[in-house]
């Protein structure tokens, strides 16, 4: 009994609760009945492999990288084990990193806005269609999720490049004489990232549009609301929570996106993710990479806080005084 307790007690602080339930039944079953499977003991046994795996592959690495942020980088990739805020102050005092942070937020914001704008009509269409092809249409919109983002990013390189589909088409039609600069810059990264994150947004929106009963739209029409009024006064307010959740997901994903900024950006778009990689692998400056990671996590936290505030506000308006009661 106690062995089981210490076994899992080394995980995250919260999992101590599971073995803590065991002593409550201990006096009755006692050490005389070691083979008795109480729910707490069964749970401990069932959760143990997963907890060990998560400890090794997730909890420990995060602690290690957090610790690394307080070390001091030495020239040539060496690291001095110490406990200093020096790396933090160095990074935060450097205008270059502030530009990177700003770029990251800018990219995240642009990608989120465009992704939501383009995903909303599709999600609305999928949520409302009664077509018998609905299953296929949903799959078509969501399957890109499971397709390698490297492959999809490569596709965008073929579309946006100076010899790509868009430029070739525009030039052959005679609309432009010289290729548009669509890749190796922010424009290209925003276009490609928007497409990459659309399936996520559509998926979240569809599942968040449950309150969208077509009968409500008919009721609004019977009360004199035209299509635009129905959209603005009924559909939009009811779908807003789903849109917000999709926005959070896309923003968070694009803040930390690496593949698309690196490939489409062509080494000219610097965001936190590319910077973390370059510091860690190219410059071998782990403490700076760790500090940048911590900054990214702080950014994440801020986004989640803002989202929770917004969501509570919207839920209150949509559902009534914070309750799904009755």
């Amino acid at each position, binding site marked *: 009994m106690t062995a089981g307790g210490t076994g899992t007690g080394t995980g995250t602080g919260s999992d101590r609760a599971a073995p803590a339930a065991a002593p409550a039944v201990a006096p009755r079953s006692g050490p005389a009945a070691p083979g008795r499977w109480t729910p707490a003991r069964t749970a401990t046994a069932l959760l143990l492999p997963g907890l060990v795996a998560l400890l090794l592959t997730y909890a420990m690495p995060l602690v290690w990288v957090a610790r690394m942020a307080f070390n001091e980088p030495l020239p040539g990739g060496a690291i001095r084990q110490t406990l200093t805020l020096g790396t933090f102050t160095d990074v935060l005092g450097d205008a270059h990193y502030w530009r990177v942070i700003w770029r990251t937020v800018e990219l995240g914001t642009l990608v989120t806005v465009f992704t939501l704008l383009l995903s909303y009509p599709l999600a609305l269409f999928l949520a409302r269609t009664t077509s018998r092809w609905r299953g296929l249409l949903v799959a078509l919109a969501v399957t890109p999720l499971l397709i390698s983002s490297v492959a999809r990013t490569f596709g965008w390189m073929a579309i946006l490049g100076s010899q790509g589909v868009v430029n070739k088409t525009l030039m052959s039609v005679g609309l432009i004489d010289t290729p548009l600069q669509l890749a190796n810059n922010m424009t290209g990264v925003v276009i490609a990232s928007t497409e990459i994150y659309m399936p996520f947004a559509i998926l979240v929106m569809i599942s968040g549009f449950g309150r969208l009963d077509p009968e409500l739209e008919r009721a609004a029409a019977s009360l004199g609301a035209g299509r635009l009024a129905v959209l603005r006064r009924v559909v939009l307010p009811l779908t807003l929570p789903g849109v917000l959740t999709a926005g959070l997901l896309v923003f968070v994903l694009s803040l930390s996106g690496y593949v698309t900024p690196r490939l489409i950006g062509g080494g000219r778009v610097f965001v936190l993710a590319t910077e973390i990689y370059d510091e860690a692998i190219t410059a071998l400056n782990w403490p700076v990479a760790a500090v940048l990671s911590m900054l990214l996590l702080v950014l994440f936290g801020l986004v989640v806080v803002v989202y929770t505030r917004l969501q509570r506000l919207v839920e209150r308006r949509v559902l009534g005084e914070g*309750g799904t009661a009755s």
Partner: protein
Amino acid sequence: MTDPGIAAREGHLVLDGLVKTYPGRHGAAVRGVSLSVERGSMLAVLGPSGCGKSTTLRMVAGLVAPSAGRVLVDGRDVTDTPAHRRDMGVVFQSYALFPHLDVAGNVSFGLEMRKVPRAERARRVTQALELVRLDHLAGRRVARLSGGQQQRVALARALVVRPTVLLLDEPLSNLDAQLRTTMREEIRRIQRETGITTVFVTHDQHEALSMADSVAVMHEGRLEQLGSPQEVYERPAGHFVAEFVGRANLLPGTVARVAGNEAEVEVPGLGTVTATGHAPAPGDRGSVMVRPHRISLDAEAPAGSGAARGTVLSAGYTGETVAYRVRVGADGPELDAEHPSGAHRPHAPGTEVEISWDGAARLVPAPTPAPETAKPGDGAT
């Protein structure tokens, strides 16, 4: 189907040969419904589920486009008018209240769509809520209302815009039995107070008979009969109406003689029965209908004093009534009879009784052999 010759063109709301077919589905959901509703009256469209009554209502509301036929309001063709310009108040079966608005917000929605000034809007919302006795809950979120309260909000929301016609789709089906009775009277009261032309759809014959001024019985996309509640119940136009509106004993037979409004019908196993109702000619097929509660069973009466002699097969006590099943003669037809309980001791199974119905027999025309050729709106006048 193009012109079924509706006499009542002057009706406030006229449905003229409405047809709805759905692509890919065999047969039509609505197969040519024509009827007329007088100004200020209340029409119940009654039928089993899937008979096309809700589709008909939705065509009137403009929510479903008819495949053929017209909808007229005050003689004006509104068939191509979109729902939001049709000016009809609709109460949906699910109420379809806007969950993101409070009670007052729901009620004022239609007024906002009509650009009614704020002050007048507030006044009319209050009035409408007073009408449905919900003025104390104006600020309440609709998710926090009981079923009956949601019902009233839906009603107020539909009425506040002063629509030309009020349409209700199964308005009471989501309420429990007791609330249903209350709301039945409530809707009737509000309809009388506002004097609004109303059509409601229901599958409940009690609702239809007790609330409406006239009842349209629908079956398999067709209008079977249109008439007052008494007409539909006492003088059903066919087998379906006879059995759907109340319980009925239907005894098939052949018309032997016709005399004015009476006919003598030869019923196998029972003999000659005199029934009221129109029979075009002797030799026609037809059924004699007797409602169970009009049949009396008497164990003391001498043989031959009633319409037939029979044996009680079973007796079921339901509290308010005793329901009997009796067989006429030795191997004649079986009949249902219903007596108020407590009047006298129930007859035990096996008891020989004299069966009588004191002129309550009604001749019901036999189903037309080829239903496709039947004129829609046969019973309509």
